[in-house]
C-alpha cells in the first residue's frame, strides 16, 4: 500500500485528559505573577529607604534626617503647621497646601492636554495645520517652559491662574507631540476601511483616530503628568498664593531639613498615586489592548 498508517505510539493519552484544569492554572499563574511583581516593587522601595537611612546615620542632622523623623514631621504638620503661619500662608498644613498644588496640576493638565491632543491628532492628518503647528511646538518644546514662568508671573500676578496656565501650556505642547506621533504611527488600514463605509472626517477622528491612539496618548499623559509636578512646584516657589512650593520656600528659609524631606515624600507619593490612578483608568478604557 502506498498510504500505510504508522502504528500509534503507546502511552500517549488523548489530549483532553491532560489539559483538564488548565483555566484554573492560568488564573493561578497570573495571580502569582502579580504577587511577584508587587514583591519586586516593595523590595525597590525598601532598598531606597534603607539607603536613605544609612546615609542619614552618617550625616549630621542639619544635612539629612532619617525617614522616620521626616515621617514624624509630615504627620505632625499635615493638617496644621504653626511654622508656616509665620510666612503669611495662614492656618495651613502640608496637606492643605498640597491640595492647591494638586488642583492646579489637574486643571492645567486637563485643559492643556485636551487642546494638545486635539491639535496633535488633527495635525497628523491635516498637512497645512501640521506645517503651521510643528515649528511653533518644536520651538516652545526646546525653549524650556521654565523660562516662561517668571514672565507669566509678571503678566498675570500671584494668582492660581498663573501656575495653571503654565502647566496647561506645557501639557499642550507635550501632548501635541505625543498625540501627533501616535496618530502617525497608527496603521492607515483602519481609516481606509472606515472610508469605505462612508465615514467622514469627523467620524474618522471620533471613531478611529481617537480610540486607536488612546493607549499611546495615555503613555504621553503619564510622562507629562510626572514632569508637571515639578513645573507646578517650581512656579509656586517663584510666587503663588498657596501650594506645597510655598511650604518648600518657607522651610528652606528656616533651614528645616525634616520639613523639606516631608515635602519631598508627600510630593513623590502624590505623583506616584496619581500615576497609578491614571494607569487604572487607562486599563478600564483600553480593555481591548
Amino acid at each position, binding site marked *: 500500500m502506498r498510504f500505510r498508517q504508522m502504528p500509534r505510539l503507546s502511552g500517549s493519552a488523548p489530549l483532553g485528559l491532560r489539559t483538564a484544569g488548565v483555566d484554573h492554572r492560568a488564573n493561578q499563574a497570573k495571580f502569582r505573577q502579580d504577587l511577584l511583581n508587587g514583591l519586586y516593587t516593595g523590595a525597590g522601595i525598601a532598598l531606597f529607604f534603607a539607603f536613605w537611612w544609612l546615609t542619614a546615620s552618617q550625616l549630621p542632622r542639619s544635612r539629612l534626617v532619617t525617614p522616620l523623623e521626616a515621617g514624624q514631621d509630615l504627620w505632625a504638620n499635615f493638617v496644621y503647621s504653626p511654622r508656616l503661619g509665620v510666612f503669611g500662608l495662614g492656618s495651613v498644613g502640608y496637606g492643605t497646601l498640597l491640595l492647591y498644588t494638586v488642583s492646579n496640576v489637574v486643571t492645567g493638565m486637563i485643559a492643556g492636554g485636551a487642546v494638545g491632543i486635539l491639535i496633535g491628532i488633527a495635525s497628523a492628518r491635516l498637512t497645512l495645520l501640521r506645517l503651521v503647528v510643528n515649528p511653533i511646538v518644536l520651538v516652545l518644546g526646546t525653549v524650556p517652559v521654565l523660562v516662561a514662568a517668571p514672565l507669566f508671573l509678571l503678566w498675570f500676578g500671584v494668582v492660581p491662574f498663573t501656575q495653571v496656565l503654565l502647566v496647561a501650556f506645557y501639557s499642550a505642547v507635550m501632548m501635541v507631540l505625543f498625540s501627533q506621533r501616535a496618530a502617525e504611527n497608527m496603521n492607515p488600514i483602519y481609516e481606509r*476601511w472606515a472610508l*469605505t*463605509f*462612508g465615514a467622514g472626517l469627523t467620524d474618522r477622528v471620533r471613531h*478611529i483616530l481617537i480610540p486607536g491612539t488612546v493607549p499611546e496618548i495615555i503613555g504621553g499623559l503619564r510622562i507629562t503628568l510626572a514632569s508637571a509636578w515639578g513645573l507646578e512646584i517650581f512656579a509656586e516657589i517663584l510666587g503663588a498664593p498657596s501650594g506645597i512650593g510655598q511650604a518648600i520656600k518657607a522651610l528652606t528659609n528656616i533651614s528645616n531639613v525634616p520639613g523639606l524631606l516631608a515635602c519631598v515624600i508627600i510630593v513623590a507619593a502624590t505623583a506616584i498615586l496619581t500615576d497609578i490612578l491614571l494607569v487604572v483608568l487607562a486599563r478600564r478604557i483600553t480593555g*481591548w489592548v
Partner: protein
Amino acid sequence: MDRDKPILAARDLGVSFLRADGSAVVALRDVCLEVFPGEFLCILGRSGHGKTTLLNIVAGLLRAQHGELRVMDRLVTGPGTDRGVIFQQDAVFPWMRVEENVAFGLRFRNITKRERLEIAREHLALVGLSSVARAWPRELSGGMRARVAIAAVFANDPPILLADEPFGALDYVTRRQLQAVLRDLWRRTGKTVLFVTHDVDEAMMLGTRVIVVKNGGIAEDRIIDLPMPRSDDDIATPEGLALKHLFLHHIGLE
C-alpha cells in the same frame, strides 16, 4: 437590475508609481473591464502584477492617472457605500467589540442604535460568530476576524463587494471554510463580487468568471460555467484541468 448591462465598467485604466530611486513602475496599463450584476469575478495573478492597484481604484481609494471607471453609471471619484471592501490586511478595529465592528458602517445611515445591533447580530449569526458578539478582536483567531470583516461588509449591504486576497494569510482548512461562507452569502444576496486571489484553485472554486492580471493588463478572461456549490471533483474534469493549466501557465508556472 438589468443583468446584461454592466454594473461596473472600466475604460483604459492606467496607473504608474514612482519608486524611491526615481524610476517608474507601470502597475496598470490600459485596463478595460466590464463586470455584470451578480457575477463572482475572481481576479487571479501573481504577486506584484497590479491586482491590489486595480481593486483600490475600484474601491475609490486610489485615482487612476488615465481612463475612467463607472459604477452603476456613475463616475467613481472616491470610496462609496455602494462598494464594500475587505482588505488583504486585517482591518477589524481592535478597539471595538465584535458586534460594534459589524455595526460600524450602519452608523453613517439613518438607523437607530438598536436596529444597528440587531442587524449586526443577524450577520454575526450568518458567519457563525454569535457566541463572540461581545468579545474583543484580539480574543479571536485570524479566521474569526476574517469572518467579522465579512459580516461587517455584508451588514452594510453594498451591491458590490471587493475582496483583496481576504483569506491569503489563513491556513488551508480555515480558508476552505471561509470560501464556503463567502460563497453562501454571495448566493443568498446576489451581490456582485470582485475577488482578488493568487490561488488558481480558489479562483476556480469560487468564480463564475476568472480574469488573469499579468504585468498590469488582463491576459485571460474566462467564464467558469459550473454549478455552485462546487467540489474539488467538479473542477478536476479534463476540461477543468486544462483551464487550470492555462491559468498556471499565465501566472508563470509550467
